[in-house]
């Protein structure tokens, strides 16, 4: 197999808050190959966004830092790069779109200016050419009358349109990796489907690898080849989407999938919200304990689950689950 585009190994990220320091990402490893779509699922507070921010080098300043592990991207060790080198990668080779389209654009600049500046930051291109390119990009994310809309301010756009602008900004420099952190969570259901369609089409056109973070199992089934189920800062299960959705091995994955009966239905169909697995994600303080962090919510819990962190159990087709009982369930 070819060298992966992005290779995260034994990554550990610690957050220091008033309640002390805890590993919000705890020994996470995965690979992303060129052109691949890898999805992260898991409830809120499981560390999905932190994983994305760690890759971007944008962990909250003074709070979060990488304490162990490596992030290899395109032959470079991101955890050791200077701020300046990282800056040149951000928005250029690795881009990110966020969950909150309503607040992610700067309210006091036109969307044209906000697209143009990312082009100017990474390419030697004239301002006039950048504006022309911005119109093309806006057109590519299917905003009608692109050239005129460039002069609009964010407050003149709907949430869905703003997310399209964010996608245009993210794709402006033809990145190798696009990280989409719950790009549709804040949007209406019909708009959600449109955004997913757009992402899928753009991926086909550009060949960009995508890390898609989402709650939407339907979208995962539709768009991703491989997926990672995260729980409390750790990988609960990783593998091919078809394998995991067909035969989930981790009790948490089973719970997530069973509450979405239509998981294999088409993305554009209407969806019910995810019904939660009973119980809640432990708070950050509990992260990092030497035990199965899902144990408190698990009906298969045994003494072993409470005394040691589960090891990965591998199955056919590179599927693996971090559960003491994965093999026997």
């Amino acid at each position, binding site marked *: 197999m070819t060298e992966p585009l992005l290779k995260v190994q034994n990554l550990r990220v610690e957050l220091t808050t008033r309640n002390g320091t805890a590993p919000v990402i705890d020994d996470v490893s995965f690979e992303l190959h060129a052109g691949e779509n890898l999805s992260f699922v898991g409830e809120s507070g499981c560390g999905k966004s932190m994983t994305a921010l760690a890759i*971007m080098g944008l962990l909250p300043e003074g709070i979060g830092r990488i304490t162990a592990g490596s992030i290899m991207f395109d032959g470079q060790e991101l955890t050791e790069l200077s701020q300046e080198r990282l800056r040149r990668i*951000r928005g250029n080779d690795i881009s990110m779109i966020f969950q909150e389209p309503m607040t992610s654009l*700067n*309210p*006091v*600049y036109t969307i044209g200016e906000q697209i143009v*500046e*990312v082009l100017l930051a990474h390419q030697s291109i004239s301002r006039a050419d950048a504006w022309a390119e911005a119109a093309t990009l806006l057109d590519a994310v299917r905003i009608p009358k692109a050239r005129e809309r460039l002069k609009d301010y964010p*407050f003149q756009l709907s949430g869905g349109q703003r997310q399209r602008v964010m996608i245009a900004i993210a794709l402006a420099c033809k990145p190798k990796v696009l990280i989409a952190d719950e790009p549709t969570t804040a949007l209406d259901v019909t708009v959600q489907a449109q955004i997913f369609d757009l992402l899928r089409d753009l991926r086909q056109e550009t060949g960009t690898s995508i890390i898609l973070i989402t709650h939407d199992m339907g979208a995962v089934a539709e768009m991703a080849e491989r997926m990672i189920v995260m729980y409390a800062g750790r990988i609960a299960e990783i593998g091919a989407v078809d394998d995991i959705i067909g035969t989930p091995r981790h009790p948490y994955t089973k719970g997530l999938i069973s509450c979405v009966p239509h998981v294999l239905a088409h993305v554009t169909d209407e969806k019910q919200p995810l019904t939660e697995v009973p119980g809640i994600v432990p708070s950050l303080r509990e992260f990092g304990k030497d035990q199965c962090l899902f144990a408190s919510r698990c009906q298969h819990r045994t003494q072993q689950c409470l005394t040691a962190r589960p090891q990965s159990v591998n199955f056919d087709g590179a599927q693996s689950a971090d559960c003491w009982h994965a093999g026997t369930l």
Partner: protein
Amino acid sequence: MNFLRVTITRMAYAALLLVAVLILNFTLMHLAPGDVADTIAQSAGGIDAEALEQIRREYGLDQPFIVQLGGYIGRVLQFDLGYSFFYSRPVTDLILDRLPATLLLVIAAQILALTVGVVFGVISARKPNGIFSHFVTLASLVGYSAPVFWTGLLMLVMFSLILPWFPVAGMRDVTIENGNIFIHTVDVARHLVLPMVTLASIFVALYSRLSRASMIEVLGSDYVRTAKAKGLKSNQVVYKHALKNAISPVITLAGLQLSAIVSGAVLVETVFSWPGLGTLAFQSIIARDTPTILGILFFSSLVVIVGNQVTDLVLRLVDPRVGSKK
């Protein structure tokens, strides 16, 4: 056009406000004991009651209040602010003579306070726990709590007496007789430094505290995170993306502080004998020169109202959402 309509509406409100100020000022002055006739009588060394009545009749002071008020507003609208018996000159001339000095002081102090305040605020917001940040907090506290005349006297002692860098008083050096524009400008600028710094000191504190808080909030916002995710340089993130958003509340505050600056100018002008409206106001109050006091009140209101309009305009330039339809 929307912008034009809003501007016209605001001008109309401003005019109404001015008339209200006129009525209020006049009423206040009318309620205060004593009038011009008394002052004239006093300066003449005391005159009999009949002569006093004569003067009152001459100046219309025997008319009912409402007639006097109407006459006053009518005259003001024609820019006739009356005649100062104390200075023996029309009040309008008197004020227009002094206005430039006050405007110079007020505008210079405001610009200095805003610039220094915002720079302090931004630097300390970038490192909220750094040494500079603590220094700014302390300096703000001192600057804000020190009375302005005390700061002024301190400055005078320090930078005029102990270190003879700046002139003690006034706005021009009368010994310079036939200098060119450049020499005069430098001369005025040298006189301006101490009063300007004194007046600005109170407001630097206010502005730097607000910019710091506003900047810290904006630096944690989603769009600043987006700017970083785009790979922009850190100065671009701070000055282009964050500052333009963080500055709006500071501009609003600066607008609200205009009246405080104008009244602060009265004290500062007195300390530094700066030949502006402040010293004029001070002398007129001592001399019970009603027309001049009324005129100064009117002009200060005018300065504040115009200043607020300018503030509003600047806010619109900075933030496209202000005054938009949606």
